[in-house]
């Protein structure tokens, strides 16, 4: 009997000892890496606009108008540096054509895993936003706000802040930005545009919602973080003059002057960079010690916003080639 049972037991052991085969698995495609190896490296080829870049040491975040979105919504896109492929695109609202344009612009990454941005909602083909909010959200779910601040803000002197630009996180829990008022102005031939009139730079406590205008940065139209934790500034009244406002100081001092009017400042590896309002706009370096321009950084097109990549001599630039703005990675010589 035992002899007869032996094959049975052997079969039983074989049956339970083996595993099943599995269905096919679906893997994500391998990242492609950067389009080219040496700067200038084109980061995006989007036929729609890629604007308002901000960068940490490992990821670029920007506002993206995705091709194919019939409602012209602008979403937040995350592009890991050195990977080449977007890791995340976060939108509010549906991709379907609707009666609202939802935009997520002016992103700023914090060091504690949060992203701040301005969310505008408006009407298609109409200038200006019907509602505007400053949003703070986790990086992995940007469309789900952790904190929201509806604009307009009001400064202590009663000025109305209807728009903010160039968001940054100078320290944990504090958002910094240029404050001002946005209005719609008529141009010739029935055209119109929005006009941003800057008041200066202000800090917002995310926890308390308290808005503090930074004394000494009044009138600034753009700013960048200086290596001493202070700020470089450009004021509307002297758009070529680079000012430095040390931390805890209320008095900005002149550092030097760019060769033309500056629209945007950035800090790259401790150096101030300015986007010159020339044709076409380009990026000029300025020696913070001598206050003298030390040359421009070649760019393949008209430069818009720029933002330095921390810990490197590279910066991300919004460059207009043709009809759309794309992002490029440039490097200081």
């Amino acid at each position, binding site marked *: 009997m035992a002899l007869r049972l032996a094959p049975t037991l052997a079969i039983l052991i074989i049956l339970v000892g083996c595993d099943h085969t599995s269905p096919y698995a679906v893997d994500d495609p391998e990242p*492609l890496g950067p389009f080219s190896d040496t700067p200038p490296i084109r980061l995006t080829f989007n036929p729609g606009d890629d604007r308002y870049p901000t960068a940490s040491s490992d990821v670029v975040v920007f506002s993206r108008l995705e091709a194919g979105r019939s409602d012209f919504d602008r979403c937040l896109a995350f592009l890991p540096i050195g990977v080449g492929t977007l890791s995340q695109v976060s939108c509010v609202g549906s991709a379907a054509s609707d009666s609202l344009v939802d935009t997520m612009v002016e992103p700023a990454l914090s060091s504690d895993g949060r992203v701040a941005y301005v969310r505008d909602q408006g009407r298609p083909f109409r200038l200006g936003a019907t509602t505007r909010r400053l949003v703070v959200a986790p990086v992995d779910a940007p469309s789900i706000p952790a904190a929201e601040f509806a604009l307009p803000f009001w400064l202590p002197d009663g000025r109305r802040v209807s728009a903010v630009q160039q968001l940054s996180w100078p320290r944990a829990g504090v958002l910094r930005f240029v404050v001002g008022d946005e209005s719609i102005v008529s141009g010739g031939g029935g055209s119109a545009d929005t006009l941003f009139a800057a008041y200066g730079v202000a800090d917002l406590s995310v926890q308390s919602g308290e808005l503090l205008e930074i004394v000494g940065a009044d009138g600034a139209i753009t700013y960048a973080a200086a290596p001493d934790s202070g700020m470089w500034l450009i004021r509307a009244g002297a758009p070529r003059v680079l000012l430095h406002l040390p931390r805890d100081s209320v008095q900005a001092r002149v550092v030097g002057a760019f060769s033309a009017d500056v629209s945007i400042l950035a800090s790259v590896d401790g150096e101030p960079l300015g986007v010159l309002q020339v044709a076409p706009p380009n990026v000029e370096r300025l020696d913070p010690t001598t206050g003298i321009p030390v040359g421009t950084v070649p760019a393949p097109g008209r430069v818009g916003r720029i933002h330095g990549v921390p810990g490197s001599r590279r910066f991300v630039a919004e460059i207009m080639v043709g009809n759309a703005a794309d992002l490029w990675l440039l490097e200081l010589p």
Partner: protein
Amino acid sequence: MKLLAATVLLAFTAPAPLWSQSGGMITGQVADALNGQPVPGAIVTLDDGARGSTTDQSGRYIVRDVASGYHRVVARAAGFQPATWDSVLVTAGRSITVDFQLRPEAVPLPALAVEARPDRLLDPRAPQSIQTITGAELRDLPVTTLAEAIELQAGVVDGSFRGGRLGQEILVVDGLGIKNQLDASTGRLGLRIPTVALEEATLVTSGLSAVYGQALSGIVAASTRDGGDALAGRVALETDRSLPAGWNVGLDRVSATLGGPLVGRVRFFAVFEAEARVDDDPVNAPAPGDTLDPRSSQPHLLPNNSGERYDALGKLTIPLGQRETLRVLGVVSESRRCLFDPELKYAGERGPAQRLSGRLASIHLRRTSSPTARTAVIADLRVGYFEREALRAPALDPAGLRLGGFTFAGPEFAGEAIAVSRDTVAALDPIPGVDPPQFVANAPWGIPAFFTTSSTRGQIVWNRFREGRVRLDVLIGPGTDTDLRAGAEYVKQDVQTFTRLEAYRSVTAGAPLPVSSSFSPVQASGYMELQQRAADLTITAGLRADVFNGRSSQTDGVSGTKATLGPRVAVSTSLGRAVFVAGWGRFAQPPDFQYLVDAAFDDTLRTGRFRRGNPDLGFETVTQYDFQVRARVSDAVGLRVGVYVRRLDGLIASVPLGVDPDSAVFGNADFGTVKGLEVSVERDFRSGVGVRASYVLQKAEATANDARDLFRRLQITPVGDTIVPATTAFPLDFDRRHSVVLVGRARVPPRWGVVPGGTEFTVIGRWSSGLPFTRTSVGGDLLIGVPNSERLPGQSTLDVLVRRVFGTGRWRVGVFADVRNVLNRRNVVAVRRDSGDPSAAEGQIVAMAEAAYLANPQPIPYESPRYRPWADLDGDGLVSGRSELFPLFERAARDFAQPLFFYGPPRLIRAGVEVLF
């Protein structure tokens, strides 16, 4: 006498009954062994002596309504030694003749100890077309479920009985009818009776007994086992774990039974079965030719297509006295499935899932008269509760397989709480957990088309059907030649439904309105059935009355009470070694209750996404004419030939309202005819070999007055007149013209050696011609030809079971291998209606690609996860323009349209071990 006169009168004025499927009959004659003279007054008893009969003046006796299975039959008479047949096999719906030759006490002889089996052919008392399969036969066949076993019987095709629509049958479990009256035509019963729990199963497709209603085409009767006098059981494990890819669909199955005495004379019987498969619906579809398709290298299993089933059955048999027995039965079944959706091919382990559960509880009290009573009386009181709940919704979590295809806990469903509470207000908003679909970016083709992150249907469908049933059956047997059955049944039902489509978006954003219903139909019935035997002639007549009221209301109608009468009659006689049976009957069933109420449907092609119910629907009916000849060609070979004609009437159909093609209401509008010929030849299992072959020729045509179909038949005469026909005829969906089933069994003689000797082989071969289907235009909105005017190709399979049981004592161990579709034939079970082929036509692929390209022609930039460098022909960082994009859309369309479920299952192998004790 008055009773007899009344029943005879009934038989001629309203021909009717056939007899019950709940039991069989033992009949015969007791005679003096010395002179052959009949012995009147002899008592013939079964088993423990509680059941039995007394012989009449001619020595004849009859024991009615005997439970299926083996019985010990003893005959006793004063002055004679008792005689015993110790293994008399009784089959439901049939009679077995057991004669006794009694020896005077003065002549010492041992009692008989022999086995008797019924002759399934030459039984003139069986006027029905009964096909029986015993529990022992089920164990020897390569079948797993009762449904699979029934499929082997002549006249059954893919759940359709004799060309009828799905759901035109009823399951009778131990004499109590069970039916999914809510959506039998489109949904399953939800309750499975494990085959190991069956004493036997019978299929009746003609001469349906007046005892049971709610069926037009067939009665499937399952008799469950009682616990025996000694503890006995079986544990079995089946799996395909050790098999290579392609033969391994991730099957694991465990089955355990235990039965025996519990306390005193109380017996119990219990079964638990669990089965799971990693791919619960394996298909033999060809591998795609595109090497980038992940299925090209692993074509055998589909992901997110697992399923698991659990069944438990418990039964108590409680003798209350000498002639009263109480049986309590409980069955619980639950199945859960993840449903592979081609749209979600690249969405990972996400997708819709479904859960179907069934519960049955029944109590059966039987009282029988004494074996010495002059008139046998058997009364059965049955009370039952049946519940079926079905849910189909997106699963909240991935399948989470733990052991093979087992998840044990099952998936959580999005929106289940809202569905069960039928909260149509909360359901106006997007349902939490149902994500809006977006095109995936990880498909090999990159482009935004066809493949999504979640289902575009976003379907949540829930329903619950409950019923309580009480019925009383009485069998009166005055003498040995007359049986009178009468009974009544009352059924109280409860129906609740909920449907929400596109649950990822709100109703205000365009999703169809959620639909819910709750109503409580009632049904009642009564019947009388008489069988009168005279020599070799048997007349069976019956009359059944059915009443139902859906008790449902819509804005434009309420349910009324519907009543119908179902007369039936059959005459059978034997002539030499042949039996001739002729029958006629009218049978009825209430409509599926799903058609009484409004429903949302994900079907924009035909009836729109909203379908109006009709609470005032009436019975569907069939009038059936049968003729059957059963003959013994030789001692071992039998032949059965039957022909039938069935006139279907009042079938539920969708009737257009006005000129709006999306506006329709249900009505008892369609009718049709089924004609068939059934031939079977059987060689009894003798000398280690047995064979049964059956052939069915059938023609099933529907006749519709649906305006949509009529319009297609519009004719213009030569003089310009327009003729619209009153009706149009076309094949029914289950019009399988030819089918052949061959079942062969063989046992290796012991002289061939210890291991091969005793090995049993069972082979089932099937061939059938194709089912009809309707061709449409590529757009799907125009029928080509008459409905169902095209045919699928024929199908064939060959299944084999090899079993060897070791040991003959109390403990036995068996091993078996069960192989389905041994030849791995690629059967086409469906085709695309536009191409008439499983694969889409090349033009259709291009059209799909073109439409998808036009919807999303935007370039794909380098940084997009959709960018594929091999598609960027000019290397400019953009996949753009028709030349670069369209080939991707075309390959994606080919991937999306590849036929999967158009093919039947591949070769499936399972190996098993069983321990019997």
